[in-house]
């Protein structure tokens, strides 16, 4: 089962037409995107995604001028997600602040490859730098306020909250603070903050390197949604000349799977698109499932884009490994007991036809996958089993 014969590679070598035949699906969403005005279509058609992403966020910021709900959640895991999902909560209170962590945060976030938690960490580091405080206590209070305002900007974003909390822990819990004078202590703090920002930045590379051992030639990988970490993993694998193929789910409602398939096709990775409901149908061909995570919770389970739980269940029942790629700043002190036991993150779903008002629509954007359905977590702390997550969290927070 593991070392499936890589016949499809041979196929590919025989006829290089396969990737070309692949292309039509890429163009397939073209007629669709008319509905979400500035979403998938733009990203898909744009030759350079990098520029596009930032532009995308810029327009987004220009349109709303606030930190909106789901946008933050998407910034890290699914860039191409449906932008209309956010309940566009009027968090105008946050924008009203004079120095603004938020501005800083937003400016950091414009960097396309920067996860929002890292952006938040950078913004908080800037807070320390610009702080007028003269005592340690003042500085800490200010930092606390800044992180609170960042967090309140979006309560649904797990990684933002977790990143802020972790930063506070990491920066303020240094023994050097007690006996030094304020300036040196402050510079120590800044140093630590920078270091933490660096670590967070490198996380994705580390994860990509760690996961290479698990991708073998000839394997078939099922991917759900668009996660930058997973993409990095696949990209690294492709660059190191591994031969594998990828099944992308469509990733309704925001169709982020389309984006991933597009990106992968550019790297000449054989990729096949599935509709979300075809997961069980194709699972026997799949060797491993790779997913990202919005947040990793204390039980070792993950909160991720809707449909992850379903895929994990199918994979589990067919004895396929489910791997999660997640940076350690997504570790959150949450412990959902079941699917409803989470802060709801809603997104509107476009069904293509008008839905009668009497019909209720489930609009939840993510689900919780319990740890028993996950095989391993690739994090920058190493390759962990789900039960280690709690150990790490206890060590981080207690």
């Amino acid at each position, binding site marked *: 089962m593991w070392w499936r014969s890589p016949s499809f590679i041979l196929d590919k070598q025989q006829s290089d037409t396969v990737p070309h035949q692949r292309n039509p699906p890429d163009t397939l969403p073209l007629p669709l995107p008319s509905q979400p005005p500035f979403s998938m279509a733009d990203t898909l058609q744009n030759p350079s995604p990098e520029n596009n992403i930032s532009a995308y966020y810029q327009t987004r910021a220009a349109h709303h001028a606030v930190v909106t709900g789901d946008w933050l959640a998407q910034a890290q895991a699914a860039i191409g997600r449906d932008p209309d999902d956010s309940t566009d909560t009027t968090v105008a209170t946050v924008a009203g602040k004079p120095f603004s962590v938020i501005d800083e945060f937003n400016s950091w976030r414009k960097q396309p490859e920067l996860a929002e938690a890292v952006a938040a960490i950078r913004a908080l580091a800037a807070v320390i730098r610009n702080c007028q405080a003269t005592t340690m206590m003042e500085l800490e209070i200010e930092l606390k306020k800044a992180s609170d305002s960042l967090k309140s900007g979006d309560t649904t974003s797990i990684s933002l909250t977790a990143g802020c909390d972790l930063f506070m822990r990491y920066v303020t819990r240094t023994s050097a603070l007690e006996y030094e004078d304020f300036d040196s202590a402050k510079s120590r703090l800044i140093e630590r903050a920078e270091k933490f920002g660096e670590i967070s930045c490198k996380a994705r590379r580390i994860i990509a390197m760690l996961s290479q051992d698990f991708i073998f030639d000839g394997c078939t990988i099922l991917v759900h949604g668009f996660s930058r970490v997973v993409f990095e993993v696949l990209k690294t694998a492709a660059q190191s000349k591994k031969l594998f193929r990828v099944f992308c789910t469509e990733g309704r409602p925001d169709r982020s799977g389309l984006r991933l398939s597009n990106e992968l096709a550019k790297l000449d990775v054989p990729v096949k698109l599935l509709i979300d409901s075809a997961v069980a149908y194709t699972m026997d061909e799949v060797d491993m499932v790779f997913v990202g995570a919005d947040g990793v919770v204390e039980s070792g389970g993950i909160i991720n884009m809707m449909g992850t739980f379903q895929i994990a269940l199918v994979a589990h029942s067919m004895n396929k490994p489910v791997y999660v790629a997640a940076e350690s700043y997504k570790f959150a002190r949450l412990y959902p007991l079941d699917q409803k036991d989470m802060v709801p993150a809603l997104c509107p779903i476009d069904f293509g036809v008008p839905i009668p008002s009497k019909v209720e629509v489930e609009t939840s954007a993510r689900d919780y996958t319990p740890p028993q359905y996950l095989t391993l977590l690739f994090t920058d702390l190493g390759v962990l089993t789900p*039960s280690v997550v709690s150990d790490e969290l206890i060590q981080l*927070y207690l």
Partner: protein
Amino acid sequence: MDPRRAPRTVSDPKVRKVGFFTDPPDRSLPGPPDHPISSFPTSPPSTIDNSPPSAGNSLSPVMIPPPRHSSSILSPLRRDPAEFFPLPASPTASTSFSDDVASTMKGRGVAAASSSLPGGLFFYIAAIKSAASSVPASGLTTVSVVNNLPIEKGGGVAVEMQDDQSSRSKSLKEKTTKAERRALQEAQRAAKATAKAEDGKTPAAASGGAASVKSGKSVKPPPSQKNDSAALAALEKKAGDRPPEKDRKKEVPQPRMQFDDKSRVEKAKRRAVVKQTEARNRVELFRHLPQYERGTQRTELRSKFFELDPVHPAVYKVGLQYLYGDICGSNARCIAMLQAFQEAIKDYSTPSKKTLARDLTAKIGSYLSFLIECRPLSISMGNAIRFLKNRIAKLPLTLSELEAKATLRSDIDRFINEKIILADKVIVKHAVTKISDGDVLLTYGSPSAVEMVLLHAHELGKQFRVVVVDSRPKLEGQLLLHRLVGKGINCTYTHVNAISYIMHEVTRVFLGASSVLSNGTVYSKVGTACVAMVAHAFRVPVLVCCEAYKFHERVQLDSLCSNELGDPDVISKIHGREDINFLDGSTNSENLQLLNLIYDATPSDYISMIITDYGMVPPTSVPVIVRDYRREHLWI
């Protein structure tokens, strides 16, 4: 998995028969005539016979007598003198080798007997430690020796089995004086130590792979005490790098008393303050647990009140309350005990020529043994006592007696406040977040932490319903029900029999725990496992509320090896229902064994979350908390 399990289930009943309660014919039957000890003259050759095969790998099952034979367990020991000790120190130089063994064993037996029951093992562990070898096998053999002695010494049933041998050895024993025996024993121990130092892995190496398997087999099956102590010895060696020698001894959990070990029970009885009659018909599988006739205890205690001078009145009162069941619930028991100790410390004065630290520890030890006689300690109490003893040991010598006492009392206060009361508050704070409007919560028995959670959630105005599941004989749930209904919470009351019926409407199960063990097993009131399993089958999350001071580093897989037996009468009789008390006349019948277990162990698979003062953690994280915070518990 299966191949491993099968032999265990087969050997288990046999294991229980190692206890000296079964009738002798049973055990002597499988004993082949070529039994090494069976006749004296053949004994030396048979020892030689015994050790070479164990050195070689060709051990046939025929050669090795089954583990229940005392001799087979002895064989490692018998080998020892043969190798290291060619009978020089023996006063009667002409005495044969087996005499040697017998006398050494006698000596050891005396040593084991003279030290108190848990200490008896430490004697040997100390010996092992001094040997500085790190072979678990050696630990096993040594320990097995200890456990065997009762057979030699305590005669009883064993005598019948090997009567001529023992009578001979007895007569031989009389020849050697006590001093000689001790000298012999000393010498032997030294020889053993040096031998071990020479080639670290002696026993294993000498006996080869098969032999080590054999010794493992011969030692493992006997009841958990051996396992415990063997594991303990191994643990002690492994932990070698960490704490200094002295601390190590304290850290190792003491082996529990096994009540199917007759000689030990006898010894314990001699020291006992309260005379207790043991119940006659006990269930085979639970013979290692103490069970007494309830009625006799009470009158005995009452009549002895004025004779019991070593026991402080406060401790005495708490002990009686335990005995009568007036205080139950592990938190309540722990707090009551600590407060009694506080009183006792207040009234304590160091006798002249003694130091406070030592004398007080001894004193508390004697109080403890009184409390244990009233009711076995719970794990939480054990942890609290560990804390207290640690505090006493760490008292600075410079403190005056008054100051020392004041420190101790405030330490106890702090323990109660921080580890129990505050911890409960934190637990409540966490648990309430898991209750949402419209929930149906199920609880079993009357766990104090869960009650606080429910009341607090009600105060916060959450709309929920509670199902209180209860079980005979204590019916503690009715108390909880009474209090909840009094607060205006909507409740349903049912017995555990209806659990599968009621479970489908439940959204959360909240349970209390007497202890959480480091493999995530929850040790709690009997019936908890059943509730958790049914909940798991219905996909209802099971939340366990437990303060972190109740966590224990022990690992337990079933609820057999450590448990508590309650009064069997309460399950055979129903108060006030004469018409259905069918068992009235037959409780003393030989064929009827009543089993009233107090605790059971819930495997961690059935538990979704443990709510503790360190937050909400999965059961897999219990060892992390135990590892990281045990020190903190002890020192706070």
